[in-house]
């Protein structure tokens, strides 16, 4: 796995990271949701564990990015890597942790045969949008629609 700075390294997610993943989410979102992350981690492990990466600094998890390689959805037949979940410790933002995670994940998608990488960003999250734009992402014509039930 790639080395980002002298202190941060990118590696595959381990089941023993669950506590730290939950803690990082709690730090960012302000709520403790272990059951959510237990189910999510089990889900991503089942699907594509190589597409589940964490950033580690000083022996602790400071960021993570989970994704999945799929095709055949929304009329997209081409093998596509999807970046679905990510977080970076607020204290380490601006230190290329997210970029390193994304580059490692995109390399995995590329080596797995993906020809594109996609993600969805909340229109209110300008910071995250800026992050993906800085990585070369551009708005796609495929737009999400929703109807409340």
């Amino acid at each position, binding site marked *: 796995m790639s080395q980002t700075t002298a202190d941060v390294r990118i590696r595959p997610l381990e*089941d023993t990271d669950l506590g730290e993943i939950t803690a990082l989410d709690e*730090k960012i979102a302000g709520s403790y949701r*272990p059951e959510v992350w237990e*189910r999510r981690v089990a889900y991503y492990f*089942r699907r594509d564990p190589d597409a589940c990466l964490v950033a580690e600094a000083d022996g602790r998890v400071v960021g993570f990015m989970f994704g999945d390689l799929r095709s055949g959805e929304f009329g997209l037949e081409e093998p596509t890597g999807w970046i679905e979940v990510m977080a970076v410790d607020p204290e380490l933002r601006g230190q290329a942790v997210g970029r390193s995670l994304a580059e490692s994940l995109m390399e995995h998608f590329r080596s797995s045969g993906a020809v594109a990488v996609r993600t969805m960003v909340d229109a209110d999250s300008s910071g995250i949008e800026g992050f993906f734009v800085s990585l070369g992402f551009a708005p796609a014509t495929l737009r999400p629609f929703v109807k409340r039930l």
Partner: protein
Amino acid sequence: MKMTKTHLPKKFHSAVVKWQQTFLPDYDFLLDNWDKHFPRDRSFELCAFRELGICGEIECGDAKGQPKVTRAAELHPEQAGHLLGAIRAQASTEFGSIQQHQLTLARAQSEEEQFWILRMMAEELRHGYQMLHLLLEDDWTAVSDATGEEIVEETLSMRTGSHILGAFNIDFDSFVDNAVFCALIDRVGKYQLAMQKVSAYKPMAESMPQMLREEAFHLAAGVVPLRRWMEQAATGSPYVTASDIQKAINKWYPRGLEMFGDERGGGTNVRYGLKPMKNQEAQDQYIVEVEKLVRDLNMRFIRARLPKLDLKQADKLLDEILADRGSVQGIAWEELVHLPDRAFFRRRGVPAFELVGWDGESLDDLADYLEHLQKHLPDAYRAGRDFQNYVEQARKLAAGEITLRDAVSAMPELRRVGGVCPCSKSVRWVADDAPATAATTACPAAATRPPHRAPAR
């Protein structure tokens, strides 16, 4: 990442299917309900995967930098012998764990967790299939008198009690064992697979990546229920208590440590380029990882018991409890789970049959030690054959009737009757012209089981 997919020759594939029908009867139920529990996941297939494009040079040992070999005949006979032993042991563990999980699968209280284990069992079947593929793809006659067919037959004939490694000869007593086994024993499996990923024997190295991917979920299938049980235990659930989990850890952790092999060994495998780490080094890393898991379980407990604490406060509280082994804010050290000393209840390796207690303390007298074990091991386990064998060997050793070497080598050989059942001599898994989907039960003993009930409640 490109993979090839292979099926065994028909008669061997049929043998595995026949084995599955006997020891994994819920397989079809799993496949029928796959979309309900794993709606977006790829469907399961019984086959062997080989990943292409892996490192082509030997990554450790005397021949580091030379091309990896693709045939066993290219290896030194002693090297090939070691490799064959590793493949047979790996195959034994894969099939063995299914037999163990099946014992208590139906007792799960959660349908989700039950299906996780069931899926894991199917994937272990595929891993066993993968090892049979390695045994059948190559010619091992230079290092074994047995033909490929005989090796497959022998592997499929093993049962709990006749497997190669001790951890796979122990019966499960409850669904707690299913979870703790995944969290502790599958974790050793992960280390073995990761080490074999660099094997100088390319077919072995190519077999590992997909197995490792699947293993990640197997660990989660154990760890997640444990975390949930710790949360429930903290709030007074009458089902699985922290004490139950602790005793299961005490039962499995020593066997997990022994799966790495004798702490003094492993150098030969490294020299031969078959593994990158000696036994002790890998075992040390494993212990650090399990310590992290245990701390995580305790944090889950504390956060559930004292929900007003934030992460830092809970972390500090745990440190205080561990430091004094006392009680802080109503949580006692005894309510949490802990790892036993690495020399506790060992029967192989450096501390084999030493009277080392759970806390690392030395006991002088065997009777005292057995009383100590009685306190720390699950009741149902102590009533079983595995513990009985341990006690018998320990007593003979203490009386000077056998040597330590005898005791150590005697332990894993818990053969019940030498085969799959009392009629084992008449049971053949590999048969010429076997139907691809053998519907008949393979052995009369299996046929007398109660009618199959689906594992889901």
